[in-house]
């Protein structure tokens, strides 16, 4: 759109341009001198202006991670791109460009002010993640669908909207429609929305709005419900008993079992199957309940452990900081004394006293750390032991329950076998009163076939149950080992950092007296 620059070559945002812009817009005077000397890092820049530069393509902005304000107005940009790294952006100006489609804004969830004035946009879309949007300027574009404005309803914080200069504004109902559907708006097309308009719009669109709101409400609650369920499932998974509170396992057993399904067509088997299913599901539910209970116990245990660890660390820190504070006071006093006294002997004595104090401080603080390490190590061991006990108890119990499942399956299998034998006899003797389905009759050709079929079904079932058991065992042991590993690693890291910190600090203290001495000498 910027005719002025038609003669100039279209540009791409490149490093050179950025460097120049940053330098230009950086600090001034003495601060500017320092900045220049030192160089400005792109990730420190908070605001950047790239206007009137005939830019066609946005690029190379990935380093500006902290950027909150970006001006790209009055260029010839046709496509919004390359902004995905600027997650902290709050203020984006893309006015006076040649953009046709809103896109590429999905990562800018902190965006509050978006200006797309004077572009070629015809549709409002692709802005779902801009939940913080406060001001939206879309004037002089090609938005032509009134219904499209309903898209803006999702922005709860939107207060200011500018659509003037769009074809849609010529619609006679445009203003009232917008006011009615976007009830949070305060300013529309540069004007404050007065109470009268608001009421008029509200009364005009009351019915439609009510319906819309109802639908939205339902969608929202459905979403919430879904989230809740997902969360629940997550916690069940952590308890290793997901889907055990229903017939899921049972259904899975029969799903991969063609023979079993065929056999279930047998007359008179329905009742047995139903009973079996009921009992099976019942046991599954027992496992589920036990599992969640144990999970609660475990998480409580972990929580308690964590809080105790935190307490211990806090206590230890308090002791250490007390000593350090005391030392700091001593240091201040000593330094001021050193300043006032001129006698080199006394100074010498003071310095050596200081050095011994520093060593002593090191001893004390290090002692605290060693003490803490011992204490924590012991506690962690206790915790590991308890948790392992708890887990093995859990696994044993679950295994017991699962073997009961297996027994159920066995009993069912026997019953089935018995029944099949009876049916087989009847089939052989041709005494079968009712007709069997074709594929089922295929099984009843001789004894071997039917026994094999039943055996296969039984095996499938047992394998399913075994698999579930294995899953619980492996996952639980995996959890413990990973948890303990992370605890050990964190403790190790903490200890190392603390030791480094202490030695660093003590070194600094020693440096201080040295440099102090030096300055004294220089002055003398």
């Amino acid at each position, binding site marked *: 759109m910027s005719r002025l620059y038609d003669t100039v070559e279209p540009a791409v945002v490149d490093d050179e341009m950025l460097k120049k812009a940053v330098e230009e817009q950086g*600090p001034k*005077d*003495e*601060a500017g*001198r*320092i*900045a220049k*000397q*030192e160089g*400005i890092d792109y990730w*420190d820049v908070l605001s950047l202006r790239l206007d009137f530069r005939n830019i066609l393509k946005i690029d190379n902005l990935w380093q500006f991670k902290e950027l909150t304000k970006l001006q790209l107005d009055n260029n010839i940009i046709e496509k919004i791109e390359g902004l995905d790294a600027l997650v902290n952006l709050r203020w984006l100006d893309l006015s006076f460009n040649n953009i046709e489609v809103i896109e590429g804004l999905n990562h800018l969830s902190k965006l509050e002010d978006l200006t797309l004035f004077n572009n070629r946009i015809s549709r409002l879309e692709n802005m779902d993640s801009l939940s913080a949007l406060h001001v939206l300027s879309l004037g002089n574009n090609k938005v032509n669908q009134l219904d499209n404005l309903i898209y803006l309803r999702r922005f709860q914080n939107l207060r200011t909207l500018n659509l003037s200069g769009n074809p849609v504004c010529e619609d006679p109902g445009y203003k009232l429609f917008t006011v009615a559907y976007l009830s949070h708006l305060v300013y529309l097309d540069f004007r404050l929305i007065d109470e009268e308009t608001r009421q008029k719009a509200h009364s005009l669109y009351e019915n439609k709005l009510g319906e819309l709101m109802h639908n939205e409400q339902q969608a929202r609650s459905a979403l919430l419900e879904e989230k809740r369920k997902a969360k629940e499932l997550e916690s069940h998974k952590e308890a290793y008993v997901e889907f055990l509170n229903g017939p899921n396992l049972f259904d899975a057993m029969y799903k991969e079992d063609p023979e079993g399904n065929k056999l279930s067509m047998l007359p008179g088997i329905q009742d047995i199957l139903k009973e079996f299913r009921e009992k099976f599901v019942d046991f599954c539910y027992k496992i589920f309940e036990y599992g969640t209970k144990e999970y609660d116990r475990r998480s409580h*245990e972990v929580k*308690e*452990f964590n*809080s*105790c*660890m935190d*307490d*211990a660390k806090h206590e230890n*820190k308090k002791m*250490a*900081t007390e000593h*350090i504070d005391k030392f700091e006071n001593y240091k201040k006093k000593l330094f001021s004394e050193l300043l006032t006294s001129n006698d080199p002997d006394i100074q010498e004595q003071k310095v050596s006293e200081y050095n011994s104090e520093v060593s002593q401080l090191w001893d004390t*603080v290090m002692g605290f750390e060693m*003490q*803490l390490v011992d*204490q*924590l190590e*012991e*506690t962690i061991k*206790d*915790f590991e032991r308890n948790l392992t006990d708890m887990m093995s108890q859990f696994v044993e119990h679950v295994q017991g329950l699962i073997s009961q499942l297996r027994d159920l399956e066995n009993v069912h299998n026997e019953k089935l076998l018995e029944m099949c034998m009876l049916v087989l006899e009847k089939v052989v003797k041709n005494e079968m009163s009712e007709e069997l389905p074709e594929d089922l009759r295929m099984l009843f050709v001789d004894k071997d076939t039917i026994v094999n079929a039943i055996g296969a079904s039984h095996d499938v079932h047992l394998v399913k149950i075994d698999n579930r058991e294995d899953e619980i065992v492996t996952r639980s042991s995996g959890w413990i080992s990973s948890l303990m590993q992370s605890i050990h690693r964190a403790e190790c890291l*903490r200890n190392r*950092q*603390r030791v*480094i*910190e*202490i030695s*660093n*600090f003590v070194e*600094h203290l020693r440096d201080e007296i040295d440099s102090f001495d030096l300055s004294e000498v220089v002055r003398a």
Partner: protein
Amino acid sequence: MDIIPEDGLEETQEEVKDLEEKLNGIQLETISVTVIKQPAIDKPDFSEYPESYKENTNKEKLILAYAENFRRQYVHLFRDRKPLFLNPLNECGIEKFVCTTLRPTLLPFKELYHWLGCAEFVSDYITMDQLDPPAELPLQLHSPSTILERQLGNCFDFSNILCSLLLGAGYDAYVVSGYATKEVCLSDESRDICPLLNTKPEVKKEEDKKAAGKYSVKPPRDLRSKFIIKMEARRKKEEEDQKDKERMEEEARVAELEKPPPDLLYGLRIHSWVLIRGGKREVPEDFFIEPFTGRSYSPQNQSFLGIESIWNHNNYWANMQDCSNGCKDMSFDLNDTTKWEYMLVGADRSTLDIPNVEEELYDLEDDEKDNEDDKHLDMPAPWVRPINVTEKQNETRCPSGKKTILYKKAKLEKYSNYLMKDGLVKRLSVYENNELTTLKKVQEWFGNREDKLTMRLHEGGVVTEDFVEGRQRSLKQHVYKANFPGSETDRTMTFYDNARVDGLSKRDESAIEMTEHFINRDDFLYYRHVLFDKRQKKVAPATAEGLPRPILKITEKFHRNKELPANDDIAEQMFILSEDKVQITYHREDANISASTRDFFKPPNAEEKGGNLQWAPDMTSTFQVNQHKLPTKNLTVYEDLIRLIQVEQSSIQAVRNSEEEVREILADRQKEEIASELAISVYDTERNEKAKKHRKELERLAMEEKLRRQEMEMDYLAPFLAQIGNPEKISRNQAFKLKEDCLSDLKQRLIDKANLIQLRFERETSELHKKQLEYQQKQVVMTKEDEEQYFNYCSEAMFRIHILELRLNRHKQMAPHKYMQLEQKLRQDPRLSVYF
């Protein structure tokens, strides 16, 4: 019996003694009985009392007969007990039953709804009069209204009023007649510690230690020798025991010294006080109120030696319990007939149980039956006038508004509100010794002060002043040395921090230091400490305000601002002005034990250069805790420095402002102390002069308005209209005639009046003339007195004549005006104006 005459003698002597004692006992009884029946009249004028004071109704006579019967039975059964206080005489010499002298009253004052307030009011308002003789019941019991009028009464009068007020406020209160120690009977508190000094030791809140969790770390092993610790503990305990013992001995010695001298009449002194039984008004257990002092005692207190009887407005109980051990083991379960003998049957039911609704309904049906079954005598209505206390009486309290109480090593003076010019209401002086000669501390309480001062304490040369909220600079407490009231001296000011914009809660000062504490500030500042240098001694004596003290160092401490990373959040900044140095300590990260620090060395006169400061790398030194982090950029450090230079200036300004504020507060205090004005509530109609004036003004205006309206309403046409029969409409002729008549009538009246004055004038002159003639004739024989009389008459007559003359002249002048006025009015009269 000559063989052992001495023994015999002794025996007889003992006998005699015994007899004497017995006789004495009998005598006492007979005397007191007869005394009751003697009508002792000391005040013959009863006209001001209502009828109920002067005679008994039939019912009262009946109850008196009941009482007499009760008394007779009592005397018969318990020959060796003292008589009961049943029916003393009232101020008109009429026998009245004690229960009917109680009149439950709730007075319209907030503080009199609680027993403490009632007790304090009674003890303050009435002056105490001791019983005479102290071991005998008084003959008279005055009605409460009389006592409140006289402001003088004995213990029975006190208890009577107090009990009436308490019953009115809903307490289960009783008047007790019994025996007490001399100190209590004479209201001698000089052996008691002043209740104001008896501050309760603050209950230390036991910090509920968090229950040790399952995984709490084990404490490091204690490597000290257990034996040594044990020995040490034992040694300490011994020392403490020794000290305790010494202290106990000392205390015992002092107590022995301070013990009151033995009282001859111990156990015989009659006293009356009030018992409040637990149950009503959330009173948990029984206790006594001593009416002279208004203090409460537990029934176990050793000052109360025995109880003869108790009563309230419903019933009378005689004590059946042994009092040889004081009131310690007494039970106040009045329904237990083995312990308390009641006088009226069935009168005390209400004190028993809380009736629930259903029962009550049932009772209602029952009641009628009950009443028919056995009609008990219930208590007649009280004969006394209602107790009435005006607002002013309640406020003035003590007779003439002043009262002084002596306590052990302390003196308490009470003044009523607005009595003292400086608003003093209470002054407690504490002395070192029992003779009250060396002053230890003085505590004064004030009320209604314009400057909101409530308390001032002088102790050991230090003055503490407390203020209530609402002062201009929200001062709460001011502690300073009495000898150095000026600024820049040792003082501590506490403020109401939530009323101040800067959240200042406390400011400590000394000659070279000032410490300020803040609460709830947006910039997280909570502490500022300033170190001043001594003023440079100039040749000329520098004025205090002229040159501010040079500042050596300012230290400011901040709370953690959670929005910033700890490493960038300043915990303490120290401006060392004397060295041009700024030291900054940052907050610690959660995981760290050391804190990052940064020192700046300012170039001289940095603040003048502002933003154009030249940067050099040696202007700062940094210690960074986290070594893995990149060092802060020079640019940031430079910006920090610029910012700090500004902050330093504003901190200095803040310090100067603080100093200024201190000076202003001190100046204000001085002014206020000189003025010592008292604040008067806008609702106080008695004292608020302005409001009073305003009200008077309003009344006056209303009065004038009323007069004016009356005048307006006088209709001069009425008589003439009446003459023509009050027609609805007035014709033109009639109107003219009316006007004419009216005017001529006025004219006539004006002339008549002039004539009247003329006539009087003439009469006076002729009279005077006659007298003169007479005088001239008799002048020679006249006595001096007659002559005097004549001259007097003359001067008076002359005066009268002169006045008449003046009046006539004035009338002549005014008459045309009046005529014109009336004419004008008639012209404007709505009824006539149509025609003119």
